[in-house]
């Protein structure tokens, strides 16, 4: 079983879980998203209790979403029902297949949309129009539809046709450039940070539009560009240019392990004992430094030139060397623990195993719920980093198999009979 809730871990008996009221119960999302940048948005809505119906292509066996058959895998088996990332991003959703190349398929999709509150999609710009599912066509069958389209560069502008994935978005919105060590080329992000937050912003767009619809009865179309969204995540450093004319592309930048905004020193990632072992330390002010110096108890930390922020910022290289000299032979968790005990922000740079298997905070949060997948077996997935006191999230169901819920949706929701469903199957529509 899997559960949400502060006290309930993955193996807690189910009778301890209070009856759940789902926050978004009664809302239906007709979901044409894929990958993480889209599927992550509807994953959140599903965990909050919305009925998310993921529409996939029977001809290409769900191949719209390259993650369906992509690693990681639980064992040596391969196939479209075994992709670990796909399972992670599509928990709690229903899955149907509709061949949108056929007129019968489009009719079926429109019937489903007529009884849906939300349409979500993250195809390249223009694809939904070609599939006969443009906003105007959908609005004709569901006037108050909340239609959220998410693409790399949005539906308008000279780059609208361009293709992206996370690293392209991050490069073109300024985030990649902001990340690196002084005097080295940019390091950027070692994962698709903007796929996560493309999904976050998309979920926000859906929910904000629903708030408006619930109050006024008016639906709308949302054009989301992941690069626009990403560019909102660069702030004071952007204003330094628009106000002061100071570009971030200048010698010594980026330098993102240090901090000038706000000014903090020491503020860095320091070596610790062991292979590729590191610890992050940040002194927010002189009081933090005083506490650090007390915890360290060595002469270097009592040098007068380090007593003030201005002094520490002015001698940052010396300061970094001194701190690194102290941390280098010590265990990263021991350093972080000692400094935290003194009230100084510090954290070991955690590997996945550390924070997933050995962190009491993630365990107590219930952050790694278990889903039972028909092909993959019991698999842990990402949880939700918010607990809602009255209507908490739930992640129990694995990602849908291809077309797993065709009968439930087409017969149960749309009222088709078995004969009609069989006919659609025979015609290759579902």
């Amino acid at each position: 079983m899997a559960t949400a809730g502060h006290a309930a871990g993955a193996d807690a008996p189910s009778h301890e879980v209070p009856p759940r009221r789902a926050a978004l119960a009664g809302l239906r999302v007709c979901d044409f998203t894929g990958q993480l940048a889209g599927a992550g948005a509807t994953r959140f809505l599903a965990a909050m209790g919305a009925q998310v119906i993921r529409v996939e292509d029977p001809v290409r066996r769900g191949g719209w979403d390259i993650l369906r058959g992509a690693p990681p895998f639980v064992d040596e088996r391969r196939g479209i029902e075994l992709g670990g990332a796909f399972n992670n991003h599509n928990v709690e959703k229903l899955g149907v297949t509709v061949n949108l190349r056929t007129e019968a398929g489009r009719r079926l999709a429109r019937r489903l949309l007529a009884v849906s509150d939300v349409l979500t999609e993250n195809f390249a710009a223009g694809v939904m129009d070609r599939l006969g599912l443009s906003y105007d066509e959908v609005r004709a069958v569901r006037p108050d539809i909340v239609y959220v389209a998410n693409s790399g560069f949005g539906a308008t502008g000279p780059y609208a046709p361009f293709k992206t994935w996370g690293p392209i978005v991050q490069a073109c919105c300024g985030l990649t450039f902001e990340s690196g060590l002084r005097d080295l080329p940019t390091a950027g992000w070692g994962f698709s940070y903007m796929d996560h937050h493309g999904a976050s912003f998309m979920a926000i767009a859906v929910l904000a539009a629903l708030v408006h619809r619930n109050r006024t009865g008016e639906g709308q179309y949302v054009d989301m560009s992941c690069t626009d969204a990403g560019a909102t995540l660069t702030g004071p450093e952007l204003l330094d240019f628009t106000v002061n004319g100071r570009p971030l592309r200048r010698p010594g930048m980026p330098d993102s392990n240090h901090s000038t905004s706000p000014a903090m020193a020491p503020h860095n990632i320091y070596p610790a004992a062991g292979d590729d072992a590191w610890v992050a330390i940040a002194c927010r002010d002189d009081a933090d430094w005083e506490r650090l110096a007390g915890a360290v108890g060595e002469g270097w930390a009592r040098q007068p030139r380090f007593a003030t922020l201005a002094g520490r910022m002015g001698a940052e290289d010396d300061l970094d060397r001194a701190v690194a000299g102290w941390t280098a032979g010590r265990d990263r968790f021991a350093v972080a623990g000692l400094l935290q005990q003194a009230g100084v922000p510090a954290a070991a740079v955690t590997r996945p195993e550390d924070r997933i298997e050995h962190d009491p905070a993630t365990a107590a949060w219930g952050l790694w719920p278990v889903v039972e997948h028909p092909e993959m077996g019991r698999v842990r997935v990402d949880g939700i980093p918010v607990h809602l006191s009255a209507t908490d999230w739930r992640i129990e169901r694995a990602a849908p198999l291809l077309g797993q819920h065709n009968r439930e949706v087409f017969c149960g929701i749309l009222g088709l009979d078995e004969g009609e469903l069989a006919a659609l199957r025979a015609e290759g529509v579902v």
Partner: protein
Amino acid sequence: MPAAPGGGPLAGIRVVELASEHAAFAGKLLAGLGADVVVVEPPGGHASRAFGPFADDRPGPERSLWWWHYNAGKRGVVLDLEAEGELLRRLVAGADVVLEGEPPGRLAALGLDHDVLRAGEEGLIWVSVTPFGRDGPRSGEVATDLTVLAGGGPVWSCGYDDHSLPPVRGGGNQGYHTASLWAVMATLTAVVNRDLGGSGQHLDVSMHAAANVTTEAATYEWLVAGRTVQRQTGRHAAVTPSMNVNVVAADGRGITSGVPPRTAEQFRRVLGWLDELGLRDQVDDEVFLEMGTQIEGVLPLWEVGVDPELTAIFAAGRQALTVIATHLPAEEFFVQAQRLGLACGAILAPEEVIGNEHFVARGFPVPLPQSEVGRDVVHPGAPFRMSATPWRLSRPAPRLGEHDAEVLGPLWAPARRPG
């Protein structure tokens, strides 16, 4: 309290935000969506008014670009939680949402926590954003953006191939942004639930948990396969090392070769581009490019590093793009590659983004009048474009106590403010 100007989707929603570093972005998003957000500062102003950079490099509480950025769209009042708890109660009594990032225990010690202030306020949604959540085994730990990202997972995946160099914190307060985005997602969920008949509630956001579930493959490689990804310069941390993707273009700026050619047609286009620039003789593995033109369907990414032939073909495509990129300015390479259907990118600095033709065409740069410098200041604009209820930055960040009279004035009357 007058209703917020503009007609965003959250028009009429009242938010009281206790000023903080880490949840300020959440308040800004709610304001951009049309909520009336009142940010509450302590006497003397919130600490982030002392964060640089400053307008014209002259420090001062009304000149912090941090404050300007994170608080644009909000109104602001000064209220001493220690001495004016009653005033906060009255302010909260008219609100839909309280957003706060106070250290766990502080509000309870003041008798101002959500359990007290939500009593009698059935519909109030109270959002707490803290490093490790309101309770639990690590809730007493202190954090900054750096330590959140280091302890929560993202830092492990970022940095350079050379592991004698430390891993890297992605820049720009992304640990705070990540928590703020989850906070807004949950807040709007609670608003929808309340509008559909639910009650108000308490939302407990953990910055640490938020970072933990914002690491893409690092987490699920471990959860699913028990494998540990390793960081690589400018590309995805991975279990199996991949080829370099970042290239310094002819103008000294960076590009990312992104997804190199994977279909026969794309290989033909890249060969044509090489010929057009007279660069075919500079690629080492022309034979594999030619083999690429024979691919059926799409080259599967997960065979790269596994199947030797597909790996060589994929690598040859990437190398061809590298050769081309070193002969063109970065933005020209990016635009031309994209016009050929190749998902490549230019590594733009924030100042290059705000002036870029695409962002300008979409109306992304937003000028706001800023009296301190006597001119308009350009801010980053809408994260998405809503057809009926557009996102909007309605005003520059509030000066210290700017809205005391209009917001707190009506609340003072029954209990005179001390002093």
